[in-house]
């Protein structure tokens, strides 16, 4: 009997160990292994740091975004885009950037942990977070500590509200909603619209509210408004049926691509025909593994990334060479962030000896200066207000033959 108890204890121990081993290895995967092409971009910066202390300054940038988990596609794209920009910037000589990317799995608690790690590392500027929920949690910390923060894609107003140190490169959620409503009414895409949004998510709720306000003034009728509680929700039969029964012609999807893919599939299985309009969260749906892209045919997506310019073409080429995949707008946002920081650092004469708080005040002064504007892949003449919001025009694309076509 004693032996059996011992065996049981050992086995339970082995199980727990297995559990821990599982955790640690998943945590390892958050730091990209050396073979990951994306991490190469940081290497020249590091060797440059060691080799040539005399030339230029190396600025330490901390990056936070989901590198694993259901929203990993966004975080990996923003990291990758930033790394391509850093490679270019470092090749110019002068100011050198060093990026340390941490994983937050799109979770606020893990985001704050990542932030603390980066503070220990000696971060001077914070680049992130990729998603709004985590970004709002981290912004509260960075505001207290006085760290300059530029987010590529966290579009909720909760990120910037009351935080003078936080700036956005993407446009805000309510603004996206308004633009979408304007576009639908201007191009007479539909008069009866259904909305399915995630009401536990700032991003989704923010766009919905902006959309609803604008729609009322434009004579767009929102016939069905349904919600779901989390991005891992898989059953949308009730929401789709409600939209169908109330005669909606179009479903507005201010949500991320994973639940959106479920909605597209389930509506098609039921044989319901809607047109769809999504926001930047839908970006990524075409590269979802196993997803039949023909289901996304004719879907409208609001995105700031104009893929037709020369600069964009060169970026797309580099991105493809590094990752083997097409960049989405998140990658372009990340790329633009680095150039915005580069221009601002040049203007403010940031050096590697400066502490984060000193850097923060200097950069805030530059960003809010009306003479400071940045041309990037996601818009030209981008300017920032004191509320941290960016001024630029959104672009609307339609998916045709599995690719974006400008509208």
């Amino acid at each position, binding site marked *: 009997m004693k032996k059996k108890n011992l065996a049981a204890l050992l086995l339970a121990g082995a199980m727990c160990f297995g*559990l821990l081993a599982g955790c640690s290895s998943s945590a390892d995967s958050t730091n990209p292994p050396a073979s990951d092409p994306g991490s190469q971009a940081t290497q020249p910066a590091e060797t440059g740091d060691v080799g040539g202390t005399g030339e230029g300054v190396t600025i330490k940038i901390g990056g936070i975004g989901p590198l694993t988990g259901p929203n990993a596609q966004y975080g990996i794209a923003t990291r990758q885009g930033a790394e391509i920009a850093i490679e270019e910037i470092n090749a110019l000589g002068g100011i050198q950037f060093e990026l340390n990317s941490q994983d937050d799995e799109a979770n606020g608690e893990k985001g704050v942990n990542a932030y603390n790690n980066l503070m220990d590392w000696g971060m001077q500027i914070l680049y992130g977070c990729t998603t709004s929920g985590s970004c709002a949690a981290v912004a509260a910390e960075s505001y207290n500590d006085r760290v300059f923060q530029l987010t590529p894609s966290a579009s909720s107003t909760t990120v910037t509200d009351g935080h003078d140190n936080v700036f956005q490169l993407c446009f805000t959620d309510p603004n996206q909603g308004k633009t979408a409503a304007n576009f639908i009414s201007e191009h007479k895409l539909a008069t009866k619209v259904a909305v399915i949004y995630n009401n536990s998510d700032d991003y989704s709720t923010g766009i919905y509210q902006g959309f609803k306000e604008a729609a009322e003034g434009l004579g767009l009728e929102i016939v069905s408004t349904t919600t779901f509680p989390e991005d*891992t929700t898989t*059953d949308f039969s009730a929401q789709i049926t409600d939209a169908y029964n109330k005669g909606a012609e179009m479903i507005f999807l201010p949500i991320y691509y*994973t639940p959106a893919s479920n909605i597209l599939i389930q509506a098609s299985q039921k044989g319901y025909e809607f047109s769809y309009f999504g926001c930047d969260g839908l970006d990524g749906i075409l590269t979802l593994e196993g997803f039949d892209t023909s289901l996304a045919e004719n879907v409208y997506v609001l995105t700031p990334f104009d893929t037709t310019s020369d600069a964009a073409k060169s970026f797309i080429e580099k991105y493809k060479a590094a990752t083997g995949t097409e960049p989405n707008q998140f990658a372009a946002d990340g790329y633009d962030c680095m150039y915005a920081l580069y221009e601002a650092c040049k203007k403010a004469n940031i050096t590697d000896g400066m502490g984060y708080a000193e850097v923060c005040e200097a950069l805030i002064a530059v960003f809010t200066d009306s003479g400071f504007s940045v041309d990037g892949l996601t818009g030209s003449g981008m300017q920032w207000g004191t509320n941290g919001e960016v001024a630029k025009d959104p672009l609307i694309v339609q998916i045709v033959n599995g690719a974006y076509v400008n509208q």
Partner: protein
Amino acid sequence: MMTFLTNLVSGISLGSVYAIIALGYTMVYGIAKMLNFAHGDVIMVGAYISFCTTSYLALPAWVSVIFAIVVCTALGVVIEGLAYKPLRQAGSLAVLITAIGVSYFLQNAAQLIWTSNTKVFTSVVGSGSIKLFNGQLTITVAALVTVAACIIIMVALTLFTTTTKMGKAMRACSEDKGAAQLMGINVNRTISMTFAIGSALAAIAGVLLCSSYNTLIPTTGAMPGIKAFTAAVFGGIGSIPGALLGGILLGIIEVFTNSYLSSELSLAIVFGVLIVVLLVRPSGLLGKYVPEKV
């Protein structure tokens, strides 16, 4: 009215998946007197195996289902042999914690093998639908197949436990393990067999679940697993018809709450039902009340 019918169909289809999963819980509980919390994750493994067979090996859907069943059956037997068998004489708490450990182990292993990126599962039964009443009522083929599979499994399992030798051995074990052993029944083999059947059912449930709700991530099985456990307790754990009744009622409750009340409340109500049932009928709707002699 049509909304009501559409929801009813969705509910029965979702409930059928819960019922098939609940069978795995109920059989294992009935015979080994343990809660196999890793059952939900075996579902996930089944779905991933099917996904890989169709996507990477480009084999037809039916081959992928058979492959998933074979892998999951083996997995179930291995889990039982490695993790649970050595704990046969240990307290129920040790077994419960081990089961939770196995569950996390499977989730993390899946994350290592298949990464945490969402995969979109293509329905193994095609994506068609049948329209009734001038197209007002739409029933997807996936839903029909799910309900049909559930009924076939229930009938087959009932016949198995009542007519075959192995089935009778299982029932004997669930009545009294010690007495069954004295009658010459190999209890260990019977328990392994139960795990094998339960895991094969989990594979089928995984494929059906993902055919209706198409995204696949390493935690896909966790929530349906817990809901199916609720269904098993709701219907009376240990009882096969109880699993069917509990599963279908739970599916209907979930879809109706989602549709008529709110999507945030659906989970609260599903688990609220569990609490109410446990208060009113501690042994579940069709469960037998066995007084414990002190």
